[in-house]
């Protein structure tokens, strides 16, 4: 399986990364080598094999559907937001989305 620089640029865009021009050519080469390695899997017949997502075949454990509220919601929020790049009145600030 090969991957073209154009496919790299598109996939990067979907992953919110910018890779284009000469960079995309270089990255396509390296990722092509990784996909070649990965393609060794195709040699084995897995037609009757159930896919495995968890090594213990465990399923998601669920708790009772009760909200857990912090004792001091405002203080907790403020503490969590201290590390945010930009906040105002308890809200995260991002560039204007709607004019």
């Amino acid at each position, binding site marked *: 399986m090969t991957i073209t620089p154009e496919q790299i640029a598109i996939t990067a865009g979907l992953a919110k*990364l910018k890779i284009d021009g000469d960079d995309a050519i270089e990255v396509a080469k390296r990722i092509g080598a990784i*996909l*070649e390695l990965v393609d060794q899997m195709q040699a084995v017949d897995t037609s009757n094999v159930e*896919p495995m*997502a968890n090594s213990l075949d*465990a399923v998601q454990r669920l708790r009772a559907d009760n909200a857990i509220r912090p004792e001091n919601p405002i203080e907790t929020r403020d503490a969590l937001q201290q590390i945010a790049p930009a906040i105002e009145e308890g809200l995260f600030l*991002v*560039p204007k989305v709607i004019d």
Partner: protein
Amino acid sequence: MKPLHELTLAEIQSLLQQKQLSSREITQHYLDRIAQQNSTYNCYISIDDQGALSAADAADAAIAGGANGALLGVPFAHKDIFCTQGIKTTCGSKMLDNFIPPYDATVVAKMKADGAVMLGKTNMDEFAMGSSNETSYFGAVKNPWDLDTVPGGSSGGSAAAVAARLAPAATGTDTGGSIRQPAALCGITGLKPTYGRVSRYGMIAFASSLDQAGPMTRTAEDAALLLNSMSGHDAKDSTSTDIAVPDYTATLNQPIKGLKIGLPKEYFDDRLDTAMASKVQAALAELEKLGAVLVDIELPNSALSVPAYYVIAPAEASSNLSRFDGVRYGYRCENPKDLEDLYTRTRTEGFGDEVKRRILVGAYALSAGYYDAYYRKAQQVRRLIKQDFVSAFEKVDIIAGPTSPSPAFKFGEKGDDPVAMYLEDIYTIAVNLAGLPAMSLPAGMMNNMPVGLQLVGNYFAEQQLLNAAHQFQTVTDWHQQSPVTD
């Protein structure tokens, strides 16, 4: 008495309890060594002098008051992947260079509750993606045995810190070999527990179905002490297993006569370097002398573990790392012109090349039209790999082989060829896919560099692994070899 930095955790604990040593004394000793030598090895990203000394004083007061505990007052280091409240946690990335977590990871909280004294946070490959520590935003860690060689990765800072005697023990995480391979390359003992044994809460996620934290120590006995503290069910991790934690130190001294050790023919075929093979064979002969029985086994699908891993791990990583968007915490690009620009430039500037590569591979493998050929196929192969182990464990108690194909390599030796680097984990990755516990033990030297013996156990059989490892260390002294001369 030997130098303080040559004491094991068990020895430190015993001296603390006998009041022949104070926690402040041993902690200050390590902080002094770190201040003098960290620039040589680059194994710490952050050092917490004040926090360490105040925890040491608290431990000393508790001991004076009659308190007892295996880790009370004992210094150690955390890999910089565990969230530590109030202390910068970078995961080796520019993306988190300014991240000060508002909470502790469960592993951090448990060890704190047991009175262990954290010296600082150790360097690592960016987001744990690497086998040489060369992908860290904070510069590569150097192998204390030879400063021109890599310490392995991703827990290279933890391994180098223990080997260089800049910490008596450290935590690590292992997604495809990130505890065991650096342990092998730096000549220390490392244990990756069964998936679900140790909580992943507050451990920055790389590949959630594979990630597992574990101890990196000088001896198997110390690994047992740390694992006692780290393990246990945690409601905050939905994949944490609710199985009682035994005392891992209780069975260390049991004889291993009759222990059946399986040797997979795929791990000893002509692809294994002959010098490495002879070191591993010599180590196995020691286990045989202790009464273990060596049995030939097969793991027919093991060659597919690296290909399957490089679909599953990047796919999970591409999903996990989507949270780094410059909005709530971490790096944000300068002057974004709109929201799209904010996301894209933050991620393009904040992630290093290897992380971007894995995000791309993962996003591609999960994309429409490729999902069945890649992701579903890899999950099917994953089951075949697990079944190989399940069949093998019907015949044997433990599986043994090399940890890595070669000893530590030189910086830049693998160039920028990702596939060459990925093959470094050829013997460790299958264990993560299957979710099994495994250890690496110092088992000899090749050209003055350490090599590791890997022991793989059955699910939740860490006790048996640690028992075999400890018995091996009672008749060998590879784990006592040190690159440190002072």
